[in-house]
């Protein structure tokens, strides 16, 4: 199994290295779909240049990375390409082991259920065989490494790749049951881009499930566990923030990084929903809609956690997808992260969704060219395609969610629902 993974890594690294050396690299690094004001490499370099001039990188409105990133690249700026390729490899390898571990558990659970004869008689075709599960970890790694979105993101040196690496390490630590590392990586991910905060629910549920702690608000053990995790999480977050403060000697980075993420002052076009909405917003309602849109990212956490109490890994996937759709400065790199999970479960409308996503990916540069370069179109064209792109993503996520729920339902109630009189029935959401 290691051989195909190694081969895959070699192919992926070759593609990236070749693109880094090609003339496309410059073109890709300018694409607004690939880099956002938060993640653009150009801005990292600018931050370093400002630091060299003796100006605080946060004195202006160009640099919005965290202080740790700038100090990381202070040393690694000459090895940036290797760093970004390495980050992608980390994501792929982490996903490989995450999915492998997850599959082991699914298989174990399935085995117990089969032995206890808990599955209805007619849904044995839903039970997964080891043979079909064998290639899923490799597929997940492949979906990330050879996904054009992640390739572009890496070649553009978007720091989104680094955020993805941190998130994937967090998931790996969680799935391996390492509470401390999970908390540390979650804190790092939160420190980097704020939104991964919502992933803590999935991690908590998973870790509790693993340690057989009941999710019950009346139990002391539940609260004790939550407190432990929160302590580790907040502690490491505090350390990182304090470290940033001591590196720079000021708190300027807080408004410049987190204030920037939350208040969306930069309206540079991207694949998300924020830019044109807030460019066209009436000033009077700006704050209101800003709150609505930001709350929208976080509001699904609790209902999803309740619904997916038994399936924390799927919960983490849903959270990642929701963050990458509704966050303020999304890039295609974020999409590549949750797409890596697609081989793990099943999907209904593969053809429709993939066609729409492909069409949008092709139309983004075309309409951008018409608007910005040729001047023959206007902002509405590009805006329209971002809307379609987001609808396609929502369709993908809700379909995936629907298919997951339906499979779980069938595993309990049988594949062919019958009415009381024995005639054939359909399944509806009520």
């Amino acid at each position, binding site marked *: 199994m290691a051989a195909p993974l190694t081969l895959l890594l070699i192919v992926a690294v070759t593609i990236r290295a070749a693109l880094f050396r090609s003339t496309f690299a410059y073109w890709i690094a300018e694409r607004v779909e690939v880099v956002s004001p938060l993640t653009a490499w150009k801005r990292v370099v600018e931050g370093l240049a400002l630091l060299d001039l003796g100006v605080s990188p946060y004195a202006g409105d160009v640099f919005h990375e965290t202080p740790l990133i700038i100090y990381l690249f202070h040393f690694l700026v000459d090895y940036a390409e290797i760093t970004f390729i390495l980050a992608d490899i980390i994501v792929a390898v982490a996903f490989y082991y995450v999915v492998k571990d997850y599959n082991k558990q699914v298989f174990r659970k399935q085995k117990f259920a089969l032995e206890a004869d808990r599955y209805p008689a007619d849904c044995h075709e839903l039970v997964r065989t080891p043979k079909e599960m064998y290639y899923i970890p490799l597929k997940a790694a492949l979906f990330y490494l050879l996904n054009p979105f992640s390739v572009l993101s890496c070649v553009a040196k978007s720091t989104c790749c680094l955020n993805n690496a941190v998130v994937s390490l967090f998931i790996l630590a969680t799935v391996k049951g390492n509470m401390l590392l999970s908390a540390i990586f979650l804190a790092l991910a939160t420190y980097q881009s704020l939104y991964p905060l919502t992933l803590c629910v999935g991690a908590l549920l998973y870790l509790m499930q693993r340690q057989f702690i009941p999710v019950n608000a009346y139990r002391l053990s539940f609260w004790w566990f939550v407190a432990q995790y929160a302590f580790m999480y907040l502690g490491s977050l505090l350390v990182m923030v304090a470290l940033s403060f001591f590196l720079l000697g000021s708190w300027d980075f807080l408004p410049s990084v987190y204030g920037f993420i939350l208040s969306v002052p930069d*309206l540079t076009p991207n694949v998300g929903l924020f830019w044109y909405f807030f460019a066209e917003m009436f000033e009077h309602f700006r704050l209101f809609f800003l709150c609505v849109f930001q709350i929208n990212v976080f509001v699904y956490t609790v209902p999803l956690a309740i619904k997916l109490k038994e399936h924390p890994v799927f919960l983490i996937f849903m959270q990642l997808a929701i963050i990458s759709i509704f966050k303020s400065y999304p890039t295609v790199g974020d999409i590549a992260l949750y797409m890596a999970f697609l081989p793990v479960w099943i999907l209904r409308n593969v053809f429709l969704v993939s066609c729409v996503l492909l069409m949008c990916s092709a139309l983004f540069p075309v309409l951008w060219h018409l608007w*910005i370069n040729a001047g023959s179109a206007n902002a509405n064209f590009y805006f329209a395609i971002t809307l379609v792109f987001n609808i396609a993503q929502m369709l993908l996520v809700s379909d995936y969610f629907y298919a997951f729920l339906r499979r779980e339902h069938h595993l309990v109630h049988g594949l062919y629902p019958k009415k009381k009189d024995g005639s054939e029935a359909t399944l509806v959401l*009520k």
Partner: protein
Amino acid sequence: LGATFLLFLLLLLLLLIQKHMIVQPLLSGFFQCGRHVERAHKLSHYRLFPKSLGQVISKFSVRELHISLTQGYWRTMQWGQPYQPSPPGAELWVWFQDSVTDVDGTWSELTNVLSGIFCASLNFDSINSIQPSASFKPLGIGNVTDHRFLRYATLPRETVCTENLTPWKKLLPCGSKAGLAVLLKSEKLFHSSFHSQAVHIRPVCQDAQCATTSWELRQTLNVVFDLYVSGQGKREWSLFKMFSRTLTEACPLASSSKIYVDVSDNSEVLTAQAVVLGDRRTFSVYDLTQKSTFGTTSSLNLLIRWKSSDAHMLRPLLHAERYVAGYRLQSGEIHTLMYNNHPYRSFPVLLLDLVPWYLRLYIHTLSVTSKGKTNRPSYIHYEPSKDRVKPHTLEMLVQLPPNSVTEVTVHFDRILLKWTEYPPDPNHGFYVGSSVVSSLVPSIVAMDTNATHECPLFNSFFPSKEETSYFVRLYTEPLLVNLPTPDFSMPYNVICLTCTVVAVGYGSLFNLLTRNFQIGEPRPGVAKRIANVIRKMRGVPPL
């Protein structure tokens, strides 16, 4: 053909007033007219100093104030160095006393008051004002150099017209009733290629010992007339032709009132020599305070006619221009070219750029090249912009090699703004103010000490500590930059569409989160349902 003339008017007062006016023929078919009024006085005593400005100075604790309103762009390569440089539009720079605690607040109040005094819309606040660290030093006495008390701002798009000239004329002690100001008729002054009016206030020494200081107010007016067009191609000019007026008397309050005509090309008349801006010029002087100047008709009209059509003008040693490169609405480059035309001397220049926040500069892309080689600036002062708060300040000291072109390039991103932040006609573009190039340029012509004795005016205008170099400030062209625009006609549509998409996402997740799978009745076909409706109406049991 034709002639360019420079009229330069000056009033100097130190309990006596002097007025000087300089007329200078230059190369192409233009007239330049300059007017200087200079007075000094204690601020408690408003005999000659306008009270409106005096109160402004004391209320806002101003140390120095320089304001100019300009229509048109000074073409250095055709007209030579300007006597009083000013950028197109409005420019204001103020040094405050170090007793001012809230400089930004005082600055914003001061600009509002000045807007009222000069009938201009000087809406300067922190969004478009900067604090240059080296380019604008105080011109008066006192050696405050802490640039926290300096504010500099320009409005490149400000149009200057009669309503700005009238309040400017009112500041003169005789108004426009007597003296040289009689010539300033707005219908003539604004029928010109370049018009620049300015007010400079600075503290000066009252006597040689400098025991007491007093305020100096200097009003200047530079006008370039296109005589080639109005003079039917003939190379001649007269006061009457330019201003439709002749002079009858000096302002009675003036201690000195003179007209200097630059006659370097036909020096047959009575002359005085001076070295101005590194060039030796010959002037004929007309003193308005003497009766004999007006002759028997008691009115003075000057008429000068050239025999030959070629005129001599020293090529400016320092020259700068600027343009925007890049055709796309995503990013671009600002190129600034600085020419050192001196054959063998290199000299340093200070370049100051004020770039608005909506062009996002990338300082790591800054490149300075001369003669194909990288020319590292020895000093860089850079303050990045904050969106909607403050502009970029880029100031650098570059050494210009002899006989070379130095190119300064910097990349910028064009930002998509909120739809309410665009001006009317957003596709016209956004103006970016001129770069300021300041330098001590080595003089080619040696200073003639005899001539300067006769023209104290030039000493005070062009102070040069070393006599081998002189101070030059140049302004480049303002830039016009296009930014990407949203569609202004459809905010409602965008809000509705985006909210719909968010609602689609929310709705589908909400649907899946709140509902459970249940066994439902298979719905009967359409035909069956219609049949059942009919059967129900007939009172027959359904199928």
